[in-house]
């Protein structure tokens, strides 16, 4: 399995790496490297899909029970979510936020042992539901953070009245703001389901919540607050973009710092 995984790992790394570089090129010469960037994303994502399918086929149960394995799946979901928007030329710069991050996390997951398959410690149905929904939600929050970052960047340029403000093709502020809200609106229910399943399991086992659970609940409150502030207080634009980024900081903390250190099963 490790050899087969290696065969699929490198095309994915090359694809994501090429996309990250091409998106960087897009920042200097708009329009020139858009196509190679999109193709890099597609090829990398297909290779990673094949990698996950190969792992699933040879695994003894759910193949992403480890932290590294779930990070691998998380990256795949992020890129899949990005592919939905990234193929539009006006969203090309979003790739500059998403693809370097995807590349780093993918390599990190691999270094952490995502290439090997370990037997599941828990029933696969629980893991599929809990981990699957939480990771899908996190992928949505990552995309929302990319959109919010793009909003803040473009908003700052418009506010500063930069002479080159029209140089890059970027979606309008209103579209970015609306899409960020919609993405969070889809991701938050997924996080709610994932947390509810996890908490139910915790209660059934009679265990106390660990740091992962606490941070997960805090992230839920932040994103819930984001939607409530939009609906109830009429918050829009810069303020809500910062809230989306604050929520994403929690997601990153949860995925990269806390989860590897805590035995969260």
């Amino acid at each position, binding site marked *: 399995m490790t050899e087969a995984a290696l065969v699929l790992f490198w095309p994915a790394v090359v694809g994501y790496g090429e996309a990250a570089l091409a998106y960087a090129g897009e920042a200097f010469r708009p*329009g020139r490297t*858009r196509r190679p960037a999109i193709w890099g994303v597609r090829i990398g994502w297909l290779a990673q899909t094949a990698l996950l399918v190969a792992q699933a086929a040879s695994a003894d149960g759910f193949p992403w029970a480890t932290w590294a394995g779930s990070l691998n799946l998380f990256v795949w979901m992020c890129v899949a979510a990005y592919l939905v928007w990234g193929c539009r030329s006006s969203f090309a710069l979003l790739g500059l936020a998403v693809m370097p991050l995807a590349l780093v996390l993918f390599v990190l997951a691999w270094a952490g042992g995502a290439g090997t398959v370990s037997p599941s410690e828990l029933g696969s149905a629980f893991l599929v539901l809990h981990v699957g929904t939480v990771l899908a939600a996190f992928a949505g929050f990552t995309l929302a953070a990319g959109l919010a970052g793009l909003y803040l960047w*473009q908003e700052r340029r418009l506010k500063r009245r930069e*002479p080159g403000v*029209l140089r890059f*093709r970027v979606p*309008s502020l209103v579209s970015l703001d609306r899409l960020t809200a919609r993405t969070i609106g889809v991701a938050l229910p997924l996080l709610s389901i994932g947390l509810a399943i996890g908490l139910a399991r915790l209660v059934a086992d009679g265990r106390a919540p660990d740091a992962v659970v606490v941070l997960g609940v805090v992230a839920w409150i932040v994103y819930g607050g984001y939607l409530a502030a939009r609906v109830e207080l009429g918050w*829009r*634009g*810069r303020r809500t973009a910062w809230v989306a980024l604050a929520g994403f900081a929690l997601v990153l903390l949860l995925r990269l710092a806390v989860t590897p250190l805590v035995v969260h099963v």
Partner: protein
Amino acid sequence: MHVVLVGTSHRRAPVELRELVAFGAKRSGEIAMRLAAGGEAVALSTCNRTELYLAAEDPDDARERALAELVSLSGLSASELEPSLYVMVDEAAALHLFRVAAGLDSMIRGEGQILGQVRSAYEAAQEADAAGPTLHRLFRHALRTGKRVRTETSVAENPASIALAAVELVERVFGELDGTRILLLGAGKMGEQTAIGLMARGARDVIVANRSPERAARLAKRFSARPVGLDRLEEELVAADVVVASTSAAGYVLTPEQVGRALRGRQGRPIFFVDIAVPRDIDPEVNRLDGCYLYDVDDLDRVVERGSDDRAVETARAEAIVAEEGDAFRAWRLSRDVVPAIASLRALAETIRRDELARAEARLGNLSESERRAVESMTTRIVEKLLHLPTVRLKEAAAAANGTADGVLYADAVRHLFGLREDEG
């Protein structure tokens, strides 16, 4: 088959004449069908152009038919109309259409609406059964050119005037301008131009505020807008998305306090201010307010200036794409000269294959269904493989001959070598 274009546009004719030859999308198919008359036709009409594309064996006859159609549409005589028309044939017509689809011939360079209008005209001709193989290929290339120019270049992102820069910036905040409300403050020339630009991109709801009620009413009539007095400014600010200021007032007409009060009722919606007045109408401090974007005439001028270099580069790239697609269409069109010879050659090969198969079948006795399919498939593949290279070479040679007699020479050689009759194909 020749491609013929007869048309007029904002470059050749004033709006009074363009109005006379314009027709709605619903009539496009009907006109194309009438013009096709055994050949092919597509009729394109937008607010800035009316163009009739025909594909016919006799380009002079096609030109006459198109001219007669325009005469009939306009109610003018041919001699009155002709100075405002342009006629293009073959490659020139194709390149012109590709530039139109790319937005390079538009009033607002790179604008995206024209691509949809070209597509609609083509679809209307298809529905009316007026578009044949030549115009199918021509319009498919045109649509591809338009799409490529928009995705591979930033030609639309570099406006050439202050009014266009303002329109582009407004789009960077709101995106689609359908449903956005414009508040026109004052009646300056550049303010009017900006409002026209915004309306051309879809803004429909315009309010005119002016110190002089008569002037406000006159301007409002021009834009089908609602006139209001300056005393209702704050109230109107709550609902406006874009404020275009160009009054001749000596001091600020809009202060941060006024805008701040209006913002409370806006539910976080952004607002864009274009201040084209000198001296300025809007206090620059307004730009500091959350969700407010204020550009004065110097800011807009810097945006235009910064875009001028990029504009030249991007236009050159867009023109290169047009030329590339033009070459591809030209090669295809020239290769059509040898199509009858290729069709005859393939028909001959297929006849031989079938005859020989029938003869072999009689000798080999009864073949099972699967054996029969295997032999059928094998003989077809042999014929395909034998004819593939000559077909490609023949088309390449015709394209390289560039419309000279050499192209026909190759076709004649094939006819002679394989004993094909002149009338075959």
